[in-house]
């Protein structure tokens, strides 16, 4: 748009930056900024002071709207409202306050320019309307004057009938009414001759305007009946189809009977008068309409509904037959029917197109001038688009915006001469209004579209950003959760990406790592050692992954860790493998794995050395009982080297008499049982036997299948020696206890020997006595000697080799040794011994030791004397039981579990060693037997020994 002079603008904007931006935008587009105000009130004042061509009003709240209203009130100026948003309420209130255009921030310079133009145009239009309004007011005054004048004229008419443009008529009533006279003016006014008019009594009715016919006839009937004078204005059709307004007044002449005989009337042509009146009425309603349409249209920013509303408002408000609104499709050179209202809406569809050389609408669209055809058939520019529509008058008005034709407002009527100059003027004004509204709507739509586009674009961008971000986050979270350190390196050996694992392990921040060269991140020792740079470059060249190796890396403040590193080439997604963009350095922390490996090795070594250095024999056997491993202790104790025994059955190294025990043990192991403390002697390389206590268990694979046997054997030699010493000590202790009894036992025969020998000396000649004495001496000596012998037997420390022994004989031996002791202690002995018992394997003197311990124990339990029952009988299959039952005081229940513990004694200090029962227990164990106790306080105690019978 070209401006004759530069447009002066006042900016009302509270934010300085925005204000400045707007100012620069305006200046760059050729506007002059005459001032800036920071608030509404200042804006009003500055408008009054500077008189700008247009005000740009920031609509921050009601302040802007109020200011706009005040400006319109005090100093009418076009106002463009600038708002941050465009709610219909805001637009409405801005429009009501008098804003000419509405602009959503931020606005481009072109948007602003358009808005300013619209505001100014509308403002001009408004001024024009105001002028029109003023004119119309003047017209009303004129009409009143005219009416007054007409009244005068009427008076004159009454007398000067013929000179008046009026038709005098007479109607006679005789059964039917009949026009008997009509003035000659009828011809000039209506185009009918007097004869024509008079020939048909209903002629006048036929010429009545159809719309007025009913009302006229009913009024005639009414006045006929009542006798009132008839006075009515109505329309009459002329011969050539025009419509004339007539005022018909008549007076009835009645006869004496009161019947109407005839009436005389005058038809007064009031068409001009009526037209003036109509025009006035139209203008008033047009004004109302204009302001209404303007208001409604201004608030309607959707083009189609705007046009539709405009068409309907025009049609309804002005009573036009048909109103059409066309817009110009400049590209195709066609007018497009956008909206319509009225009689012909059903025949022409919305969207109907007319070329620019077609009809009046086309012509107006092309030429941009108003075209009025009050008789379309007479206008060559008229073209009947639809012959079925009986158009007689058409008024086409161009709709211009910014000097350019944007559309056509088209009014049609089936009557000739339907439109006057008033119509043209009103509709042209309306067209301009519509133009502004169209522009507004277009601008709004454009803005809206632009906004929509921008919003959509923004949304799309955000969505795509969102998607990318989600994608990126997803990838990042995966990369971050990888329990390996990842570094992405570019061609310049700079780090472009690292994952969380690296950041944590290396004690670095991601920000403090990205962009650095790898030699700034890793210590040079590591770089040199691994040839890291060379390898990275190699991967860039080869585009092949490269295995690195192990490297120790110590991040500051943490212990050294061991990594396995490798390189992976990274290519662009669209060209995989073609060009390597980056190389990924992948570092797996294998410290624990390495340590675990070392630990396993250490543990294995440790275990091996434990096995090798053990004092016990550790032997593993295969399922067949053949030796697989043989440790140093086994070598040392047996005297056989690994090489000598490997593959030999362990059984072949056993003492022959223990073979069955070994066989049984191996069978139990293969069944899955555990074997504890089984004594099996091994035959050493030297041929001697060594006592070994074996604890064995079977080795099983993961499936639970027995794969072999591990046997741990303890050399019992030393233990046995210690035990023997202990046994000896307790034996000596027992001997001490038995000393009294033994002394008595020995001193009795000694007493006999002594007495007999003294008697011999006294009476050597008594032959009888001599013989008796010799006999007594001999037998007493024998007895003493046997006592000494059993004593010696008992006391001897040597352990006899195991042998099959008769328990009864062993018991008899010990009982004979102990009998005196029992006698001394007033203990009666009851023997329940079964003859011919199976023998047992055992050490006779060790078992005797057990028996003597138990007998002494019983005696101690019966300090006042009692009965000792010794029983020896077969028990369960293959077992022989030896019982020692006393009638003593019994063992306290709380002492029962402890009685076999070493050094447990209830005897006063110095009286008992506390070892007797524990040694007995150990000896019986050694024989593969068991020893248990039953005791009841006050009733007595029974010790039960069970020994396996020898097979």
């Amino acid at each position, binding site marked *: 748009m070209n401006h004759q002079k530069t447009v002066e603008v006042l900016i009302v904007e509270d934010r300085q930056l925005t204000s400045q931006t707007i100012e620069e935008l305006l200046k760059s587009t050729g506007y002059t900024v005459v001032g800036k105000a920071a608030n509404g009130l200042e804006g009003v004042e500055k408008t009054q002071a500077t008189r700008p061509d247009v005000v740009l009003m920031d609509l921050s709240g009601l302040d802007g709207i109020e200011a706009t209203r005040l400006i319109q009130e005090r100093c009418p100026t076009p106002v463009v409202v600038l708002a941050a948003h465009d709610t219909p309420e805001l637009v409405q209130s801005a429009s009501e306050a008098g804003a000419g255009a509405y602009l959503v921030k931020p606005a481009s310079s072109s948007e602003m320019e358009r808005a300013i133009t619209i505001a100014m145009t509308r403002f001009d239009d408004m001024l024009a309307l105001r002028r029109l309004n003023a004119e119309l007011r003047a017209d009303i005054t004129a009409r009143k004057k005219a009416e007054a004048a007409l009244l005068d004229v009427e008076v004159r008419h009454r007398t000067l009938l013929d000179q008046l443009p009026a038709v005098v008529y007479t109607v006679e009533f005789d059964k039917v009414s009949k026009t008997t006279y009509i003035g000659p003016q009828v011809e000039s006014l209506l185009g009918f001759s007097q004869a024509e008019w008079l020939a048909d009594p209903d002629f006048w009715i036929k010429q009545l305007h159809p719309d007025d016919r009913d009302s006229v006839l009913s009024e005639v009937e009414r006045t006929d009946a009542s006798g009132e004078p008839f006075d009515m204005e109505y329309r009459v059709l002329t011969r050539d189809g025009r419509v004339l307004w007539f005022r018909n007044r008549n007076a009835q002449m009645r006869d004496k009977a009161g019947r109407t005989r005839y009436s005389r009337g005058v038809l007064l042509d009031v068409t001009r008068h009526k037209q003036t009146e109509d025009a006035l009425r139209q203008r008033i309603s047009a004004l109302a309409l204009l302001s209404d349409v303007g208001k409604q249209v201004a608030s309607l920013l959707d083009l189609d509904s705007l046009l539709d509303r405009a068409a309907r408002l025009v049609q309804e408000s002005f009573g036009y037959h048909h109103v059409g609104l066309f817009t110009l499709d400049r590209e195709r050179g066609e007018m497009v029917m956008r909206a319509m209202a009225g009689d012909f809406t059903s025949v022409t569809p919305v969207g109907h197109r007319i070329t620019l050389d077609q009809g009046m609408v086309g012509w107006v669209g092309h030429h941009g001038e108003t075209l009025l055809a009050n008789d379309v058939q007479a206008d060559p520019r008229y073209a009947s688009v639809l012959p079925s529509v009986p158009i007689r008058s058409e008024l086409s008005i161009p709709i211009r915006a910014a000097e350019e034709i944007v559309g056509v407002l088209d009014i049609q009527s089936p009557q000739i001469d339907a439109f006057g100059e008033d119509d043209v003027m009103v509709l042209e004004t309306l067209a301009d209004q519509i133009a502004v509204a169209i522009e507004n709507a277009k601008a709004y739509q454009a803005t809206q579209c632009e906004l929509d586009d921008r919003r959509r674009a923004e949304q799309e961008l955000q969505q795509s950003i969102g998607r990318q971000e989600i994608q990126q986050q997803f990838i990042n979270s995966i990369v971050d959760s990888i329990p390996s350190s990842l570094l992405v390196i570019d061609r310049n050996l700079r780090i472009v990406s690292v994952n969380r694992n690296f950041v944590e392990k290396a004690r670095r921040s991601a920000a403090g790592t990205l962009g650095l060269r790898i030699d700034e991140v890793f210590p040079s020792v590591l770089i040199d050692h691994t040839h890291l740079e060379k390898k990275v470059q190699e991967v860039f060249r080869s585009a092949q992954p490269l295995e690195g190796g192990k490297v120790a890396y110590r991040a500051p403040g943490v212990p050294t860790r061991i990594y396995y590193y490798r390189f992976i080439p990274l290519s662009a997604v669209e060209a995989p493998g073609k060009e390597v963009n980056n190389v990924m350095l992948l570092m797996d922390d294998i410290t624990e794995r390495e340590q675990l490996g070392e630990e396993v090795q250490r543990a294995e070594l440790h275990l091996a050395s434990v096995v090798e250095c053990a004092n016990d024999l550790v032997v593993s056997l295969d399922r067949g009982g053949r030796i697989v491993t043989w440790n140093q202790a086994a070598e040392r104790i047996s005297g056989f080297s690994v090489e000598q025994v490997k593959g030999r059955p362990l059984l072949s190294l056993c003492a022959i008499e223990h073979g069955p025990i070994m066989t049984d043990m191996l069978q139990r192991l293969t069944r899955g049982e555990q074997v504890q403390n089984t004594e099996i002697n091994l035959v050493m390389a030297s041929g001697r036997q060594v006592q070994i206590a074996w604890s064995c268990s079977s080795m099983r694979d993961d499936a639970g299948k027995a794969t072999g046997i591990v046997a741990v054997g303890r050399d019992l030699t030393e233990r046995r020696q210690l035990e023997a010493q202990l046994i000896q000590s307790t034996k000596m202790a027992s001997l001490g206890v038995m000393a*009294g*009894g033994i*002394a*008595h*036992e*020995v*001193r*009795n025969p*000694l*007493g*006999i*020997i*002594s*007495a*007999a020998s*003294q*008697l011999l000396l*006294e*009476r050597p000649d008594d032959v009888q*006595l001599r013989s*008796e004495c010799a006999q*007594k001496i001999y*037998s*007493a000596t024998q007895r003493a000697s046997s006592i000494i012998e059993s004593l010696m037997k008992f006391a001897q420390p040597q352990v006899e080799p195991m042998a099959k022994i008769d328990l009864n004989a062993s018991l008899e031996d010990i009982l004979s040794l102990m009998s005196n002791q029992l*006698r*001394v202690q*007033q203990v009666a002995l009851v023997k329940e011994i079964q003859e011919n018992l199976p023998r047992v394997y055992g050490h006779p003197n060790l078992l005797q030791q057990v028996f003597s311990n138990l007998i002494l124990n019983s005696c101690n339990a019966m300090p006042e004397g009692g009965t000792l029952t010794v029983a020896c009988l077969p028990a369960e299959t293959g077992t022989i039981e030896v019982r020692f039952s006393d009638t003593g005081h019994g063992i306290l229940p709380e002492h029962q579990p402890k009685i076999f513990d070493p050094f447990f004694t209830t005897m006063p200090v110095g009286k008992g060693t506390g070892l007797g029962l524990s040694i007995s227990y150990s000896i019986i164990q050694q024989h593969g037997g068991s020893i248990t106790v039953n005791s009841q306080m006050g009733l007595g105690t029974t010790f039960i020994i069970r020994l396996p019978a020898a097979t």
Partner: protein
Amino acid sequence: MDDLPTILVVDDEPDMCWALTNILRPAGYAVATATTGSKALTLVAVREPPYAVAFVDAKLPDANGLELAAQIRQQSPQTAIILISGYYYHQDGTIVEGLRQHLIVGFVSKPFQIDRVRLLARLAMEHGLGGGEADDLCSAG
């Protein structure tokens, strides 16, 4: 001999009874023997007049010597009892206690001198239950 035995010998060893009989009889005493405590008590019960002296073994299968001594003394308070044993020795508390309570008048440990047995028998005969003599008798052994 027609004389009633005046001395009772109690010992579970028959040979010891034989020896004591052969030692005491030549000294002029009639000797009765018993190998168990119960047998001894039977003899004491039926003996009238009572035995003057009894040699009692300290350990018998059915009786303790001192206990038997007490029982004999209860039945026959006039009988002087001399304990004879291979089990005890002179200063043994049991013996000392027995002497103090006058259960016994003397003690002979095996093996012994036959003259001592005869001396103890004579002293017991002569002094009867003279408690004052007990210590002497003992120490004399």
